[in-house]
């Protein structure tokens, strides 16, 4: 371990490690974005594990700090797995289907970062 020689160096180290403990703060903080990935048997079989890992990777790469990525059980849309649900603060959540790992990265960029709803990938909710 090299010694830290200034406050700025200390801040740089803090910023580097911050993301690694960031997920431990509670998700019910109001301005937090929540991304849930379906990880039941159907999801895993369709590659949701790759999807969730791609999302985590992309969030770190983009330097986003206010996002929690959690896994959830089967939502009943087994035909559309991997399913990803994104809840932006004080907005109704949006459910996306068939989100492969590469689509997942795009989704993080477009929906989470830029706030765009990617209409083509949305699953119609049956009520």
């Amino acid at each position, binding site marked *: 371990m090299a010694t830290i020689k200034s*406050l700025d160096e*200390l801040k740089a180290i803090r910023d580097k*490690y911050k993301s*690694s403990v960031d997920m431990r703060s*509670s998700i019910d903080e109001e301005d937090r974005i929540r991304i849930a990935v379906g990880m039941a048997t159907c999801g895993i079989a369709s590659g949701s594990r790759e999807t969730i890992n791609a999302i985590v990777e992309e969030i770190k790469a983009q330097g986003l700090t206010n996002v929690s990525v959690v896994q959830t059980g089967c939502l009943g849309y087994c035909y559309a797995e991997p399913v990803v649900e994104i809840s932006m603060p004080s907005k109704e959540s949006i459910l996306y289907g068939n989100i492969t790992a590469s689509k997942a990265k795009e989704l993080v960029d477009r929906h989470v970062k830029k706030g765009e709803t990617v209409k083509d990938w949305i699953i119609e909710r049956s009520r």
Partner: protein
Amino acid sequence: MNNYRMDILVCGGTGCQASDSIPVIESLNREITEAGLDQEVRVITTGCFGFCEQGPIVKIQPDNVFYVRVTPESAVTLIREHVIKGRVVKELLYEEPETKQKLEEQSDMPFYRKQERIALRNCGLIDPENIYEYIAVDGYMALGKALNEMTPELVIDEIKKSGLRGRGGGGFPTGLKWEYTRKNKSDRKFIICNADEGDPGAFMDRSILEGDPHSVLEAMALAGYAIGADSGYIYIRAEYPLAINRLKIAVKQAYELGLLGKNILGTDFSFDIYLKYGAGAFVCGEETALINSIEGGRGEPTVKPPFPAEVGLWKMPTNINNVETFANICPIILRGGDWFSTIGSERSKGTKVFALAGKINNVGLVEVPMGTTLRDIVFDLGGGIKDGRKFKAVQTGGPSGGCITEENLDIQIDYDSLTEIGSMMGSGGMIVMDEDDCMVNIAKFYLEFTVDESCGRCTACRVGNKRLHEILTKITEGKGTDEDLERLKDLSQIIKDSSLCGLGQTAPNPILSTMKYFWHEYQAHVVDKTCPAGVCKALLKYHITADKCKGCTLCAKACPKKIISGKVKEAHIINKEECIACGACEQVCKFGAVTRM
């Protein structure tokens, strides 16, 4: 760095380790590796979550699900169900005793709802053995800020503004203490962290050192900068092996990163920290005795003044603060004294950590704002009395404190309100007692402790407390007289008036306070020769209620003295003259016919 998507936080404090959290961690790790998830999910050993009663505690983030009483076996289920399939394992959730509702989130639990964590902020959140995790949560930023942007005077002003008072029990304003030590001129000065936690039932200092050792190291260096000291000692009892181990690791890592040692963060400020182990003598929590012990002398107090701020370690000005006090320092520097002073009561600012023990449902550590009522602590956070028994009293302040009864349950707790009702804050231990506790016996228990722990220097404390203990023993054996009660009062006052240090000055407190609130129990022992709580053996009599007895003969068989007589299917009788009150008959009776009286 790997991009982990899930952290499994497992408590590695002494409490949870005692309930097998290490095998749980091993089991979790094994299962994660087997599932091929070791690049995505990791297990973090953290400090104490406080909910020791329900340990081992496992919290999964970012899902924010809080599991209790996890075993190495159920850890396997956790990985297979929760981690792999995203299904919450219901049977490992905390169940609210009243509503029988299973609660997922920590913040929903009554135990956590009213808590506000400042001193315990990182306990249960970070890995105490990894300095980078501490840095990630703004660790060493307060020290960095002070060294770069604040003069020592400004640091002291901020602490004064916060209103922080010593958490070891004295309640002296920390900022003033720092200022006095700063003003005293000397070639060298010292900082001491008092980690000689000795009150029976109190373990907040241990938990802070185990769960967040760097917060104490950083605050000590900060104090060093503020008062002009270049080294510090942590005086910790050798009975805390885990805390010592974590401290050693923390000190080593801090030196490696240059956060302790020469020219910290490229400034002129240098600070060294040494560990000094105590042998666990209660009196060494007293600051002058503690200093004697560090210097290699006997752990005996000396006359104050001069206070350590003038003449302390090696006769140099020395600032001594308790662990919990130090744990509050960095947030004050980072967020400001004004912020801190908005929390708490009129005269006591901030929060206080309490250790709940005794006949209470949720044994553990809680941190609440000063001014919280005792009723909230015992009945809301603490979950009330075990087995639905009736509340009798809470002993605060350990052997130096006193008891608080039902009538004072709604007092807002702070340093001054506790003193006003004849108890004291002490280090924050709270022993809860129910109707089955005999208050004379409790007073005797505490006296036994102080008799053992008296250093022997002052006659009043050395001999007087021994006599007090003897009188109490006499009373619990049913041989007490009215004069004994008078003698207890007089002698208690003499010991309080003529002892040098806090130990002797407060040793009779448990007697005075129980006499004040439970005079009728003393009377019952002395006049009626009975123990109302049914604890003091010599005063116990067992009795068989004739209409409840079925004549099953079990009690007669169990009686070691063979003094229970009666025919099969007829009511039995105990020969009260010969009875030794061992209670064997009461234990075996299936019909509740045997009662204590």
